[in-house]
């Protein structure tokens, strides 16, 4: 067997783009639920905090938030046959 010495590949380093010829060396790896920082590191993605409104009776079909005339933060969302308006959905959830 021919010996060619040690080889080392780094994190970016996938030496050749063999899976798909047009892949660039800095592009996609199979990354599920991870986040990539600008320095190339990888960490598991963060999770969800429950917003203030309790569970609705149907799937949430749309959301939109805005600042009302009195300066309060409000948002609207659809669920089933209703459209609900809610005060700041993060007031309690994130304060805790």
């Amino acid at each position: 067997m021919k010996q060619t010495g040690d080889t080392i590949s780094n994190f970016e380093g996938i030496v050749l783009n063999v899976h798909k010829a047009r892949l660039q060396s800095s592009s996609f790896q199979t990354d599920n639920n991870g986040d990539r920082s600008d320095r190339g590191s990888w960490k598991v993605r963060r999770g969800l905090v429950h917003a203030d409104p309790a569970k609705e009776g149907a799937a949430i079909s749309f959301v939109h938030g805005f600042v009302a005339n009195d300066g309060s933060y409000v948002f609207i969302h659809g669920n089933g046959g209703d459209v609900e308006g809610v005060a700041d959905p993060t007031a309690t959830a994130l304060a805790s």
Partner: protein
Amino acid sequence: MTNISTLGDSAHRHTATDYRHDAYFANGWDAMQIWDGYDTGGRAVGVAMSNSGTDAFDNDDITEPNAQTAPLGVTAGLHLIRYRYLSSRTGAVSNPSIPIEFTAVGGYDLQIPVGDDSSDASNIQRHPTAGVRRYFDRIVIEMTVAAGTVYFKALEIDGETNTAGGGPTAANITLSDDALAQNPLLWNPGANDHEQPPRRRIVLSHRGHLFSFGTVIHNTGTASVTNGTTTVTLGTASTSLNAAMDEGGWQIRFGTEATAYKVASGTNSTTLELAVNHSGGASAVAYKLFNVDNSIYVSRAGYPESWNSSDRFIAGPTNEGASNLTGGCAFGHGIVFYGLTTADYFAWSTDPVTDGSRSPIAGKRGAVSHQVVINVEGACYALDRQGIWRYRGQGSEHLSDPVDTFFFSTRAGSTINWAAVETFHCAWHANLRCIRWFVALDANTVPYDYIQLDVDTEQWSTGSFEMAIECSKQIPTAQGMQTIYGDENGHLWIADTSLLDGGTSSNAYAVLTVGASATTTSIPTSSTSLPTALSGLDGMFCYHVSSGESRLITANTADTLTTSAFSTAPVEGDAIWLGRIVGTLKTKAFTGNSGPGEQMRPRHLHLAFEPSGEARYLRVRLIEDFAGAAKTYGATRASLTEVLAPASLTDTDWRPLLNTEDGYVRMPAGMNFNRFVEVEIESPEPFNDFELFGVAIDGVEGEPPS
């Protein structure tokens, strides 16, 4: 929480925008709605002039009872007089009433009776609906100078009866022509300049206008029609059917018939009339109601509740392959309007109707829906059937090359289900500086998975949730800009703010031990302080480690979870994790330095990372030549101080300990790999706060065996 509308409709999802502190939302089927953020309910945008009948407003009861002292006193001559409703909250106005003529004698005031109905004695009618009067609470009387044709504001009075004294019973005009001419109208004076908006699916706010465009297909239930008649009966009622049909532009196609019939009008919530008799008849067949008016409608500048049906421009087709409008995205001083395979940049100088111009963007690119287009830091991103692309002012830039397999693959696990396109959406995540497009894969009809673009690095990744996320948007909150998710179970979540999927940012209950007497659906735990506020853990998922099953938590007390049923009841002492956030990274393929023709014999796999504060493990496995499964070892391996070896001959995983102080572990990788080695790193536990910096392989290479 305020129920601001009962016009929610999962079959016709709303779009929303805001303008001067009011939210506007539309779905193409029901009337566009507005909510100010604190009132007890929303309302339809705009208001109809209620007193437009020929008998309702006339000059029979106008009197001139009081002589005025100059300069007051209405100037002698023929005046035109009309009135309209005004909202003191938003400045919105209605169309004017029909005008009446009145010849003043000169030097006197004019008095016009004001009442609550359209009787002849109440010439000026307050809006008859109390809920509408609350918003359109003022009445403006407009009048021309003698023999003139231009209207001026003659008087503004209270139109709300819920006031001290119950509101005025007469409008008393005293202005001479000289004074009147100093009061020009602030709004467009045309008779039809302040109509209510058309029913269109998309509402978009930009540069002082609201834009309304995009149509929906209504096909709920079945339809029936008798041969040779025009009356169509729908099997499923819709309260908006009548009003929607009356706006025009609708056609209906029964089943696979070769003819689509024009709809003449709506009758009630289940019945409509065709323009011509149906040929052949149909009984309880599938149908499609669709609108062929692909126009873009524009509100009056500064008056988002004022529309004129003639203020529109035709959307297309301008390009080959043009479709109905699917989305819009504000860009600079214009808007990118998308079809399925078209995208036009539309810009205007002073008025989009009169001086707007449209420039097709290169390439057959478009967007599948309004929910998948987004402007992030001055660039418009959109998802279409070919991938994800960007517009920055010149041409289209295809971005999604590395993940295009999702758009063209038929491989299980990475095939987008285009039939579920109405549920796709995207949002900007400021704290991660990424855009996530949520898409339904394979047989899913709602999105559990997303494709993510980090806009700074332009790196792509993917992810998924245990629950389908049906909508998302970044919204302003007292805690800053936050991205909100709405899921299939009715929960609302704040994205990417916690260390796990759950109620708070604490990890105190992330890892639990099953207590005694658990059943398949009721799991006593080692914790006595599970969160119960808000919805508690309802809506989260828990992960039973030994069975590998995730189940939806439907309720909880301080110490017990109620879940959907596990296959078998967890045993006392088992581990239960909350908010399983498994992350995996599979590198692209390592080869020997000489290229893929060589056989590799790695000695060690090296991992460099920021150490975790807790004793948690990764799982690391090696995959040869793009095989579907990781490679097993031919002999039992011994654990090292910092790495647990595969537990058996069928186990593929090394488990490095993440609280290793120097943030570095190396594990034996010694076996032959013919040409390629992929490393898959899995972080299976909740609250794993490590960060991976590097992966390296060393070893020798040589010719593969012949």
